[in-house]
């Protein structure tokens, strides 16, 4: 019974013991690294195979359609059919391309999407490696993505691709700042950068204490992975398909996999930082439930992102960058300072949390009010009818 309660950790222990019966210690280490690594590396691929199907179904329902339903029951094999197609599709490299750079970009972006999973806490003791600098590692890996976006744009030697890459990088950079600041707020409250300890510090999920940080992180991560309403990178009507326009076949496929892998990863990070990660009812008595809670929370976040995509129109690039710098960054900074102030007031933890929540709500109201004023001013300048009067 005890074995089942902490199944994953015990399984790992039994596996290591079993390997130890016929392998030297270093051999066990190497095998464990390889097995763990391969499982984690496959996460983006798994995410792509499942999430593309889920996304089509969800968006289909929102738009009053059925979504894929031909390949397999409810179309669940659609993603596999797409994968096969990408694998056997002809690969076109434009003559003008800077070949090594062109070919390297998809490899780097897919590798970076996989690297994130090394520090993801699936459950108590179920983690690739619990780094001291865990969350900062996540941000640092993200910078590989930025470089590969530029490489793709440059390597293609195509105007659209280069413009797309520039826009993409401007977007990635602008939204990385509120992302870093809201992560810093969580680190401040948890007192550690290790992803595992951040989860353990969440006696109540941080979303109830730091809603501003949560919203800032959620929106920033939606922009980082290029989800609607921030999907300007591939605004088909404006710049055709963004920086990966010249890619075809599996090279395009790796961009696609990186995109969905990153979507899944940022949702998992959101679940870890703000929704309590693997914590849930009885998760301490039965740690085997941890990964289950973690996956449920992650898929929930993914679902909300899809919901937003299905219902919101796209931002313009100026609106989008302005939103990051003029709303999210000041709000996150104010939030960081407020949490720091409250933590230095000697009060019971509960009262501190309540104060933080109160301050967060105040920041939220102020930010919303300023946004509303800006929108009104904009509407007056352009002589647009205010939304409330109902132009339609």
């Amino acid at each position, binding site marked *: 019974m005890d074995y089942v309660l902490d199944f994953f950790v015990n399984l790992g222990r039994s596996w290591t013991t079993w390997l130890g019966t016929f392998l030297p210690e270093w051999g066990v280490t190497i095998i464990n690294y390889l097995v763990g690594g391969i499982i984690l590396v496959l996460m983006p691929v798994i995410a792509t195979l499942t999430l593309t199907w889920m996304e089509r179904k969800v968006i289909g329902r929102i738009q009053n359609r059925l979504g894929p339903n031909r390949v397999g029951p409810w179309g669940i094999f659609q993603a596999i059919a797409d994968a096969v197609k990408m694998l056997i599709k002809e690969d076109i490299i434009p003559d003008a391309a*800077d070949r090594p*750079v062109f070919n390297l970009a998809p490899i780097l972006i897919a590798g970076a999407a996989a690297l994130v999973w090394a520090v993801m806490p699936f459950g108590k003791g179920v983690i690739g490696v619990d*780094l*001291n*600098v865990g969350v*900062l*590692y996540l*941000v*640092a890996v*993200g*910078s*590989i993505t*930025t*470089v590969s976006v*530029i*490489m793709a744009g*440059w390597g293609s030697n195509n105007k659209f691709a*280069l413009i797309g890459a*520039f826009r993409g*990088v401007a977007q990635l*950079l602008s939204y*990385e700042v509120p992302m870093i600041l809201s992560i810093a707020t969580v680190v401040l409250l948890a007192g550690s*950068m290790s992803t595992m300890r951040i989860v353990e510090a969440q006696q109540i999920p941080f979303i109830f204490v730091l809603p501003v940080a949560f919203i800032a992180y959620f929106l920033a991560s939606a922009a980082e992975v290029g989800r609607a309403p921030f999907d300007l990178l591939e605004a088909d009507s404006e710049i055709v398909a963004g920086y990966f326009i010249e890619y075809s076949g599996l090279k395009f496929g790796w961009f696609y996999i990186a995109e969905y892998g990153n979507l899944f990863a940022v949702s998992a990070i959101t679940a870890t930082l703000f929704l309590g990660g693997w914590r849930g009812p009885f998760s301490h008595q039965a740690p085997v439930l941890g990964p289950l809670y973690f996956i449920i929370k992650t898929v929930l976040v993914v679902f909300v992102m899809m919901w937003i995509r299905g219902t919101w129109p796209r931002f313009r690039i100026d609106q989008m960058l302005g939103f990051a710098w003029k709303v999210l960054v000041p709000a996150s900074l104010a939030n960081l300072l407020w949490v720091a102030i409250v933590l230095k007031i000697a009060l019971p933890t509960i009262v501190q949390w309540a104060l933080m929540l109160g301050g967060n709500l105040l920041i939220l109201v102020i930010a919303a009010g300023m946004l509303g004023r800006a929108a009104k001013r904009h509407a007056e300048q352009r002589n647009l009818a205010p939304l409330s009067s109902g132009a339609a």
Partner: protein
Amino acid sequence: MQQVMFIVISAVTLISGALVVTTRSLFRSALWLVLAFFGIAGLFVLLNAEFLAVAQILIYVGAISILIIFAIMLSRGVMDPETRRFNDQWGVVAGFTAVLLVLLVAILTRVQWPLAAGAVPADAIQRLGADFVGPYVIPFEVASVLLVAAMIGAIIIAREREN
């Protein structure tokens, strides 16, 4: 094992460093620069300075190399593959740096360093944070002023004049 890792990582760093200064295409040499930054982050890890390794990737790869690539693209026209990479005195400079390297190595291998073995403190990152606001508070605040000053200056310089 550590020695092997050290040799591999420093070979990567030095080779990509050499390619940075010799590659004709500036964009590619910026990419080699990124690889060199990763190698240096690897050296930091070998030195047990994990926070610095992550900071290295975050700042150099994530920010400075992006700035460099943007500047390369903004000052285009220099991409002409026919242009020379080096200026006229590159031969002299090469000789000078070679002599410098030999001198440095000769000195470095002769000095008796006052080595003090010790374990890396487990709370190294906390100590860093404490030192920032403790004994090093002046450089800490000056860093903030420096960053803002650099930002303001660079904005003024780089802005396009509105006619």
